[in-house]
């Protein structure tokens, strides 16, 4: 059994235009884009937003990482699709269209966040949060959590190896049994995390933690003229889209739905019934 790290949101050092932007600019981008995405339930506008984000992945040269990480979301996508198609309220005449737009919504959100986390160094993020008046202790906690993800992943793998070697089978049994199976992983992991936290606190205190009222930083974030240009562009786009959505109203083509014969609800119900029978749930 192997644990694979969640690579979609892992920072990779690269030398691109986007990587050089101030984290605050990118944070602004993530927040406004997410708000925009959540304004739409119609398929066409969501797809347009999604497609508009893709070129940024090319600029940041993370398209390959993104495609690889999308594989990790296939299961989630299938679940969203099935739930929305088969359990949508009876008054929704276009469940498949709705399901598709929910999927593109998810993809657009994931892509936006992936763009952020892959291009912003976690230390810079912490720094940005301090600049945005968050207390240093909080931003420190966030970067430290991030710092210890690989360490904990490695440790979890070592515990899994040790326990499997004693004959523990994590994947065996029904659902409840499987949850119980994980106790031999979770207890040692938890205890070791507590021990590590203690050691970390000792090390921090040994490096003058809390000495000065006002802490200084080796790197100070600095907004460049380019950051301001980007922020203005993001703002204009955001206001325009909101204006179209709520004041002008969406044009008819934006409300396009799949033709009724492509709606999967009836076929799907039959498939689902078959699966349920098969599994004897």
């Amino acid at each position, binding site marked *: 059994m192997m644990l694979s790290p969640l690579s979609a949101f892992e920072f990779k*050092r690269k030398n691109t235009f986007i990587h050089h932007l101030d984290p605050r600019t990118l944070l602004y981008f993530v927040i406004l884009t997410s708000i925009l995405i959540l304004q739409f339930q119609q398929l066409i506008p969501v797809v347009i937003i999604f497609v508009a984000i893709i070129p940024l992945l090319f600029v940041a040269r993370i398209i390959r990482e993104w495609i690889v990480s999308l594989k990790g979301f296939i299961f989630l996508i299938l679940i969203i699709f099935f739930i929305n198609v088969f359990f949508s309220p009876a008054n929704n005449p276009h469940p498949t269209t709705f399901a598709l737009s929910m999927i593109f919504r998810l993809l657009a959100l994931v892509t936006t966040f992936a763009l952020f986390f892959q291009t912003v*160094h*976690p*230390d810079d993020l912490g720094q940005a949060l301090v600049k945005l008046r968050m207390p240093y202790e909080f931003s420190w906690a966030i*970067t*430290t959590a*991030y*710092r210890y993800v*690989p*360490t904990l992943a*490695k440790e979890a793998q070592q515990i899994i190896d040790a326990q499997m070697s004693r004959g523990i089978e994590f994947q065996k049994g029904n659902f409840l049994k499987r949850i119980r199976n994980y106790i031999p992983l979770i207890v040692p992991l938890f205890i070791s995390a507590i021990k*590590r936290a203690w*050691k*970390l*606190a*000792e*090390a*921090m*205190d*040994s*490096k*003058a*933690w*809390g*000495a*000065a*009222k*006002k*802490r*200084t*930083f*080796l*790197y*100070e974030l600095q907004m460049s003229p380019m950051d301001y240009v980007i922020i203005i562009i993001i703002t204009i786009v955001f206001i325009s889209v909101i204006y179209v959505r709520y004041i002008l109203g969406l044009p008819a083509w934006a409300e396009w739905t799949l033709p009724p014969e492509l709606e999967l609800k009836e076929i799907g119900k039959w498939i689902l019934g078959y699966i349920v029978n098969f599994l004897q749930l």
Partner: protein
Amino acid sequence: MDNIVQIRDLEFSYGTSRQPAIREIDLDIKKGEYIVIAGLSGCGKSTFCRCLNGLIPHFYRAGVMKGSVTVDGLDTREHPLYEITQKVGMVFQDPESQLMALTVERDIAFGPENLGLPREEIRIRVEEALELVKIAHLRERAPHELSGGEQQRVAIASVLALQPKILVLDEPTANLDPAGAVDVLNIIENLQVQKKITVIIVEHRLELALQSATRLLIMHDGTLVFDDKPERLIEKDITPAEVYGVQMPSLIQLFTQLMDEGHSFSQIPFNIPLAAAIILSELGSARSTSE
């Protein structure tokens, strides 16, 4: 006057146990010494280290400390921890738990940042520390991308950035492979020789550590049972180190056995070239005089 550490009648017990972890410790340490501490696990070495940099009493507040520890003129009970840590740098056993930033450079900057130093000063200190432990090429790397030996060098550098006069290391090579251990011990020796930093190190690998040691302390059951030059270890009037669980380097064991058989040597060597020279020049003649 040139005692940089003065310890008087030190005793400490953790809150969880009434039995003191260390007791009856009186000790003076001169500037520039290289002190190796040995002893069984659980003999109080780690506790002793924590008394030197002020973690005891400031971090372990539940415990009871008696006696006094003075480092570079500061009584550790009367000064806050962050003041003491600028005199005494502490490196721990587990490298993963003492590196908290996401790059080497920022990890080294952590201490000076806490002090609120101006950015130019932080930069100077970071560069200096990177140079001292020879890791400038690693500055952009994340801690989990480094080998154990490299991680431990980063830990040393991040402590040096506070510009301490004393460096305390609690089993810094216990988790390392031999190549990593040699690297780390070489760096430490360099700091003592070139920067005149006083070194106090807990180390099991005596065959490596004793080569540079000016003084050896052996602890047992919370007390100091040996405090002298390493050479005196094998003299007849001293309880053998093995009694206290200290493993003699095989080189020393060899010399001890030869002496048991009636040979005598002008000095006890802790490094190989010297040992070879002594054997070649003295072994034959020693026998001929004894016969």
